[in-house]
């Protein structure tokens, strides 16, 4: 009676399975079946002087924020300003630390949010976004009149150079909203108590390190698991020694850009910290928060970081710490740039996807962020500057931010910047990062360091799947 064997049952089951799989593959392909030529169905409204971007006032607006050092409260305030202007608009706000993995499927699906703060370790690769036309050109917003002064374009209300990091082949695809200063940080109180003065030359730095070590304190620590933080003072010192062109060559992936004598000299200088034992033991096993917390506790005197540091360490910084930023010490007496010169750059890239359902609303949201009110609110909430110029940030600034504004003023037009990290994410975050890790654990010397960085840059230059950008 029982003519059924398990085998024959499985056979017929497998048959229907294959059928189902084929249908599924056709129906729900991960590659996305979206028709690219379909007309843009993004919400449109009437343009007028108060609504120059043609926002449809009842169109919903979706915003995704990177929940990092700046938190998400500032965004809620900006969203409040948007609804104040467009009360009928529904705002959908969300915040995550994993921008890339959360949003990648929505880009493929053709239904991305309207504004994204594409930042953090899990950011979506800009090279990929730009080369695939996934981002809206921000020119209409930048050329629209500013909210504060209708006679001025938004573009002209920004700090000089702040559009450089988000500009690819002349088109601005990302608004880097914050203005960040990169330098070496110390506690003014600790230095004053011990009678130490911040060194202006590298020789003085090494001499001071000796004194500090003799006093039983570690002179330096660094964000061990993210050693790329130490590539910043190296590149800064090199740029100050030989001028901006060193950095432009690196950004443009020019052959042997990393082997420039200034970079070698800077790498040699900084590697001496490791060789002479001036780095806090165990630093290489700490992540950024752990090492910065040790530094806040006074276990080490100097650390390299950007000006988000004050906001990031708010919870553990002693009240009288006196967080202070300083430019990297000059390597030689013949440096091309003065001691005061430092790296100031816009950061925290905000993007509007090309397929946003409310593209105009997204651009308008950025315009509101760039208003003086939006910028002042951000600075008040995060203790960080924005790329908007002439914002009255008040006189009651926290110590770190006070020192940042002072340092920026002193640096003036001698400031410099590099953008290879936003052109080629992997080069900084993986390749230079690994080389720094090895340099500061004495696995390699300065010469091998520049060779390894150059090898990384060459591998990016050779990879024809990566789009290349040039700047001058």
């Amino acid at each position, binding site marked *: 009676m029982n*003519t*059924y064997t398990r085998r024959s*049952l499985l056979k*017929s*089951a*497998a048959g*229907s*399975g*294959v059928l*189902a*799989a084929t249908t*599924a*593959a056709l129906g*729900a*392909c*991960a*590659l*996305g*079946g*979206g028709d*690219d030529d379909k007309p843009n169905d993004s919400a449109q409204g009437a343009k007028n002087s108060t609504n120059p971007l043609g926002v449809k006032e009842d169109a919903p607006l979706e915003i995704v924020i990177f929940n990092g050092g700046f938190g998400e409260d500032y965004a809620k305030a900006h969203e409040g300003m948007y609804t104040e202007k467009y009360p009928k608009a529904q705002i959908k706000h969300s915040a995550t630390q994993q921008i*890339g*993995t959360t949003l*990648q499927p929505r*880009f*493929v699906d*053709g239904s991305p949010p309207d504004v994204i703060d594409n930042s953090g370790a*899990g950011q*979506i*690769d800009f*090279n*990929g*976004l730009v*080369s*695939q*036309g*996934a981002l809206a050109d921000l020119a209409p917003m930048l050329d629209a009149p500013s909210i504060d002064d209708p006679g001025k374009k938004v573009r002209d209300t920004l700090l000089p150079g702040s559009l450089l990091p988000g500009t690819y082949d002349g088109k601005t695809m990302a608004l880097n909203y914050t203005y960040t200063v990169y330098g070496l940080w110390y506690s003014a109180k600790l230095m004053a108590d011990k009678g130490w003065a911040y060194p202006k030359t590298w020789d003085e730095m090494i001499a001071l390190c000796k004194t500090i070590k003799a006093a039983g304190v570690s002179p330096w620590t660094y964000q*061990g*698991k993210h*050693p790329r933080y130490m590539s910043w003072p190296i590149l800064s010192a090199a740029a100050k020694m030989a001028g901006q062109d060193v950095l432009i060559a690196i950004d443009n992936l020019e052959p042997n850009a990393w082997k420039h004598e200034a970079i070698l000299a800077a790498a040699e200088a900084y590697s001496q910290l490791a060789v002479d034992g001036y780095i806090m*033991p*165990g*630093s*290489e*096993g*700490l992540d950024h928060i*752990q090492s910065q917390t*040790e530094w806040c506790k006074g276990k080490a005197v100097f650390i390299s970081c950007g000006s988000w540091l004050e906001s990031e360490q708010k919870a553990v910084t002693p009240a009288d710490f006196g967080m202070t930023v300083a430019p990297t010490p000059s390597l030689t007496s013949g440096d091309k740039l003065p001691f005061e010169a430092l790296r100031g750059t816009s950061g925290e890239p905000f993007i509007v996807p090309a397929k946003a359902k409310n593209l105009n609303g997204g651009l308008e949201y950025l315009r509101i962020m760039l208003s003086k009110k939006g910028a002042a609110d951000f600075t008040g909430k995060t203790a960080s500057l924005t790329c908007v110029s002439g914002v009255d940030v008040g006189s009651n600034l926290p110590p770190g931010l006070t020192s940042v504004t002072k340092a920026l003023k002193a640096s003036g037009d001698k400031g410099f910047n590099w953008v290879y990290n936003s052109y080629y*994410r*992997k080069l900084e*975050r*993986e390749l230079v*990062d*690994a*080389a720094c*890790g*090895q340099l500061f*654990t004495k*696995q390699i010397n300065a010469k091998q360091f520049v060779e390894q960085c150059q090898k990384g840059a060459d591998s990016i230059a050779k990879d024809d*799947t990566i789009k290349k950008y040039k700047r001058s």
Partner: protein
Amino acid sequence: MRHGRRLFAITFLVPAVAVYAVFVISPYLQAFQISATNWRGLSPKWDYVGTANFRNLLSDEYFWNALQHNAILLAVLPVATIALGLFFASMLSVGGHGGRAGVRGIPGSGFYRIVYFFPQVLSVAIIGILWREMYAPNGGLVNGFLRAVGLGALARPWLGDPDVAFWAVLFVMIWSNVGFYVVLFGAAMQSIPREIYEAVLLDGASRFTTLWRITVPLLWDTIQVAWVYLAIIALDGFALVQIITNGGPAFSTDVIGLRLYNTAFADAKFGYASAIGVAMFFVTLSVAIAFLRLSRRERLEY
């Protein structure tokens, strides 16, 4: 009657097979398709590039570096885990001194059995974070313990030193897997007749001989399955590595799974990442087959 049964069986099978096909088989097939494209994962635009991704793989030193780490895991993880698992399991079930009560485990074996199984109850994410803190250079338990017992010279920034980070992660993998195999082997040992052990004991065999000559051959089927499972775990390793070290320092703990993940989600090269996945599929498949072939033995009947 026959017709009714067929309908009955199919009604119950189709939903399960359909779910399996949609969520398991179709992604597999698509991975093969995507691996032949230059898809960058952010738009529906892509072109077929033939075998270019696979040719690039051959000269990708980061891929080979990661593969090399997987190969070491493959060589060490199954052997170490199975050896420890067998040792603990035999101690727990037959390791006690055979008194009048005959063959039994060492005192407190019930307690140990639970302790060994603990890591299995924790999720991989918790194990990863737990050990990341254990290995912390200054506040971590590992260095704290070493310093407390006067071995401060051995204390080091475990996860920051490229020479030891990989072995530190490998240790966590063994630690987190051993418990399961203690229970698995322990259960299998229960089915070995006690008389055999009593006879061996009377003949004056040492514990090691008992383990090697009696337990291992009689458990061979179970060991073989354990070996294949562990080999597959060794070829993956993604979750623990990503949480504990994220492949660093200087790629010294990178594994294929992590390379694949970073290639896809950090570099937005989904075509290339799929090619890594497809290559891995064949490696895993061949390793599983090879292990099963190599460990084939006569089955013992008792």
